[in-house]
């Protein structure tokens, strides 16, 4: 259960997979990170990250700012290139091969802190762009699927508006729909509620809870501990580029093992 223990073992793969299985996924492995390293210049952002996420598992990553949470999930879809170790997503190892990267990106959806909607396209165009351009879905089919997704995130009536006409919460829900339009197997969330006004956080979290219940594999970087407690199968606590502790929500909140985790929890709870 404790990541430090896992790292002392010579072969980490079996114990990592068992971790994922115990925690709630189907047992099939979706994402595997082995001894992942990442430097920004001289600064080491990630050191020896070992993590396996099972299919349909929801993993929440938390930790103080600068601890490498965002860097970790940005490595999973290669927005950042990792400098050491291996990352395997759904059986495809991320390497310098651009085809592998594109293939992984098609399977992995991402939601950003700053929404990053395309301001010159309407909401529906934002949602249908990738399926039409990358998966070559015909226009009518893409729009029908897009409208279904917008209904799922409860904003079908905004379909023909532009992003700037929507509130922050609505924009973030569009961003979720846009990522889902590619029918991804994994969804990454990079602090999806951090840029939102307080009254809009709930509508975005509701959409994420609904998504988790539908069986999506998710890695969520967030400070929303209520969400983590309710939805996460496992919580990963990071500090200084390392995974300090991994555990189920109950274990994490009631019985943290490491001093660093206790300190973090005492400051945010």
């Amino acid at each position, binding site marked *: 259960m404790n990541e430090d223990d896992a790292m002392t073992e010579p072969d980490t793969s079996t114990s990592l997979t068992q971790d994922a299985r115990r925690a709630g996924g189907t047992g099939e492995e979706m994402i595997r990170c082995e001894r992942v390293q990442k430097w920004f210049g001289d600064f080491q952002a990630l050191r020896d990250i070992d993590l396996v996420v099972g299919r349909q598992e929801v993993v929440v990553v938390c930790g103080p700012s600068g601890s490498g949470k965002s860097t970790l999930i940005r490595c999973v879809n290669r927005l950042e290139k990792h400098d050491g170790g291996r990352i395997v997503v759904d059986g495809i190892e991320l390497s310098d091969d651009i085809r592998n990267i594109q293939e992984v990106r098609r399977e992995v959806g991402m939601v950003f802190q700053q929404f990053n909607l395309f301001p010159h396209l309407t909401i529906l165009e934002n949602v249908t*762009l990738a399926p039409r351009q990358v998966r070559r879905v015909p226009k009518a089919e893409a729009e029908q699927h897009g409208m279904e997704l917008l209904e799922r995130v409860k904003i079908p009536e905004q379909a023909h508006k532009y992003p700037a006409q929507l509130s922050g919460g609505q924009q973030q829900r569009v961003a979720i729909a846009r990522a889902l339009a590619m029918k991804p197997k994994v969804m990454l969330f990079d602090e999806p509620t951090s840029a939102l006004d307080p009254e809009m956080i709930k509508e975005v979290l509701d959409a994420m809870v609904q998504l988790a219940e539908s069986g999506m594999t998710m890695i969520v970087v967030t400070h929303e501990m209520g969400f983590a407690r309710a939805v996460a199968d496992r919580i990963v606590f990071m500090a200084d580029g390392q995974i300090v502790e991994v555990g189920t929500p109950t274990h994490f909140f009631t019985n943290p093992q490491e001093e660093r985790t206790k300190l973090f929890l005492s400051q945010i709870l």
Partner: protein
Amino acid sequence: MSEIKVHSSEYRPPPPDRPPSGTRSPGVWVRQNLFNTWYNSLFTLILVPAIGYVVYRAIRFVLVTARWEIVEVNLTNLMVGTFPRSELWRPWAAVAILALVIGLGLGVTARANVEAARIRGIELTTSWQQNARRAAPALLLVAALVTFVRTATPLILLAATVVLAVAGYLVGRRIPPHRRRWMHLAVITGLLGSYVVVTQFDGVSLDRWGGLMLTVFLAIGGIAMAFPVGVLIALGRRSTLPAIRLVSVVYIELIRGMPLIALLFMGWLILPFMLPVGFPTPGRTWRVVIILLLFTAAYVAEIVRGGLQSIPRGQYEAAQALGLPPWKTMRLIILPQALRNVIPAMVGQFISLFKDTSLVLIVGLTDLLAVARRVTQQPEFLGQGLHAETLLFVSFIYWVGSYWMSRESQRLETRLGLGER
């Protein structure tokens, strides 16, 4: 106490107050703006008579003193230079084609604007004053030409051209938005067609063009080709391939470090010798077009680079995360936004190019300005000092073109940016 409702179940915001009325009488405006302090009163008392005098002299010259017959007699020269008079139907046909496609383009864009505004929930009302102001430069030019025309034929043809432009506009308004992409094709075909109709089929070679016709050709040709080339070089400068990046940087810095006149001389004198043996040397006018295009492309590239840098990283990342390949990210996400951000600078560069075409007179081309200089040497006008009339007339034409571009760019900016950001 009856206003206080305790059982109100639903929150209603209070009704908005009216903003304070801002209308002031002209007398109050003058006192508040022109005579509010002693020094402001002094400026007003000095400047009003001075401006009045200059305006009076200008109007008096234009309406009374000026001997406009030099423009009247030479109007055809100013329009087409030494273009063979028996072939004048060709430029007229070209003008007709251009009028049609420009009208068509304006019509399609107008409709697209209305639809876009409807989506964004903005009422787009165009008052007739706005339309009049928009058309004012073109109307002024037509009015000036009509004043100087002595025979009936050009007037009839001019009227027919205007009718064609209006017809194109009305057709454009009827084209549904999803067929809009054909409009670009129509405009390009129109531009090429107007060139073909003048030069091909026993037509007149480019080197015999002159006057306004040549100026417009140089400007449109330069702009239409410098834009795509400039965008490509800007992308080249940001390329991940070092060789392409190096070539782009060297090109931009080299061209921007040389005066346009030096480049024009090079195109005239050196370019023919630098071409491979057996390669047909382009005509003199084409060489000038190529130089203008290469010159402007370097500046366009730097403007576009600025636009590319104004796009936040998040836009690239969002497109990458969706699996869009790099060139589609550029074409569908980055360039549309980047180019919109640089419309003012870009149009400024094009206005600059339009006026810089007058430099071609130093390599022997008879553009609008060159014709204006030459007609004062004609036997009937020699030594009479009619420089002001001709220079004023061609300056007016340059001004109409530049002002029109400037106004249209402002419109484009506001229309494209409706409701965004």
